[in-house]
């Protein structure tokens, strides 16, 4: 592992992020809409069903949503770099492709976690109150873990795709199902067992569950299971992603 290469690839992601203010703002619009429309729109129904405050419930889910979208989008940047040629520059550099991949993943994950934190702030502004403020710190660590997992997944997918057409497929058949089936929008403890089974296969379910545990003190799975699954899948995706990335031909 070449730490300088990891650092410089991370730095590149950060520079690009800071410079694209329109993207930051754009990426916050959707979560805000979800929080208001769902949080307040479904709130009364949710309360009537005896499940409590819906805004409190979905805020961690919406944070998870913004992280998965930003992280995968960032990982898929590899396709852009391939299209615009910059990828070749990194592929002929005398550093292991593992370091390049790792630097990119860390950069994408940092960006996605920052988005997650911004969504948390927005949620607080529209009325969300965490059950304990002390839970914020571990919640941020969970955000980073979710972000790492999905950045690695994004790079993994991008390494296998040749063009932008594939991007839509990934969005429609991977990211959107991962989000909707994760229990980000509904409680998993009351759903039909078939849906629960599918949700259990979705790594985002554990991420959102861990966020709920730390932010509102409610969880479906044991927290140790959540963290264990997140760490395990992240390690797996990083390994597979770097293998695919290192085999890439441009």
């Amino acid at each position: 592992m070449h730490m300088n290469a990891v650092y410089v690839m991370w730095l590149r992601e950060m520079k690009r992020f800071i410079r694209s203010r329109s993207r930051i703002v754009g990426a916050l619009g959707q979560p805000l809409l979800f929080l208001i429309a769902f949080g307040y729109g479904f709130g009364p129904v949710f309360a009537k069903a005896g499940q409590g405050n819906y805004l409190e419930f979905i805020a961690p889910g919406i944070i998870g949503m913004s992280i998965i979208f930003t992280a995968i989008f960032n990982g898929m940047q590899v396709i852009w770099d391939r299209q615009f040629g910059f990828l070749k520059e990194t592929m002929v550099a005398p550093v292991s492709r593992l370091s390049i991949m790792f630097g990119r993943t860390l950069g994408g994950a940092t960006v996605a976690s920052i988005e997650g934190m911004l969504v948390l702030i927005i949620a607080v502004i529209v009325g969300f109150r965490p059950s304990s403020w002390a839970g914020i710190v571990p919640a941020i660590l969970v955000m980073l873990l979710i972000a790492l997992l999905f950045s690695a997944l994004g790079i993994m997918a991008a390494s296998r795709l040749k063009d932008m057409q594939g991007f839509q497929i990934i969005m429609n058949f991977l990211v959107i199902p991962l989000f909707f089936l994760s229990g980000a929008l509904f409680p998993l403890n009351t759903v039909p067992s078939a849906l629960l089974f599918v949700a259990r296969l979705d790594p985002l379910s554990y991420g959102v569950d861990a966020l709920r545990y730390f932010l509102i003190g409610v969880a479906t799975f044991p927290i140790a299971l959540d963290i264990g699954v997140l760490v395990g899948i992240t390690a797996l995706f990083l390994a597979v992603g770097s293998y695919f990335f290192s085999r890439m031909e441009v």
Partner: protein
Amino acid sequence: MEAIIEVKNLTKKFGDFVAVQDVSFSVEEGGIFAFLGPNGAGKSTTIKMITTLLRPTSGTIIINGHDPAINPDFVRTSFGIVFQDPSLDDDLTALENLHLHGILYGVPKDMLKRRIDEMLTLVELTDRRHDFVRDFSGGMKRRLEIARGLLHHPKIIFLDEPTLGLDPQTRNHLWSYVQKLNADEGITVFFTTHYMEEAERVAKKIAIIDHGVIIAQGSNDELKKQTSTTTLEEAFLKLTGSDIRHEAGNALELSRAHQRMWQGTNRR
């Protein structure tokens, strides 16, 4: 002189399609080598194999004493490359692009700043160093890529059609640098071009590839003598014929076009 690039029986297949077949040549240290051929002849595929971007199907390559397949990182520090199409990060400034390159290539920090200044002066981009690359013209991007390719003091510089789309002034200027670098620093130059007069003027040795096979190699004079012609362009046309070639965008494109042709799938 020692050969710094030694290619033996190099072959690359994409599916059933043979892009490069049994190619052998060598480039001596400090030489200027022109690799010529019509579109789709296998030039870029060969360069990609030499520069560790593609894995050969068979054959051996030795660059600066090492095999790119076995010791890619050593080989990668030995050369700089200017690709056929741009490979800069448009969202970074000229300076940032060079800095990123320097870090990736492990140029020591104290040396990096000096070297970047030197290179920017060489390509006359010093006053534009804080500008974003996306605002650069084609010629400026090319110059920046050359500066970047030379930043880490490589022993070999690969230039894949470096003058494509440049005006005569910039082209002239570019070849003057390249010749100066070759003379002053002893950098080995390996280039491709479609402008025969460039190869005639600059190259000490020339190889011509067509349909993936090397059909002639030697000095400019040798090639002309061999074909009884008076210019390299005539020699080239005599050797490769005057049919117009079709070329898919790149190797990937080529293999995909091929797959479509043979499997009848129409994915796009």
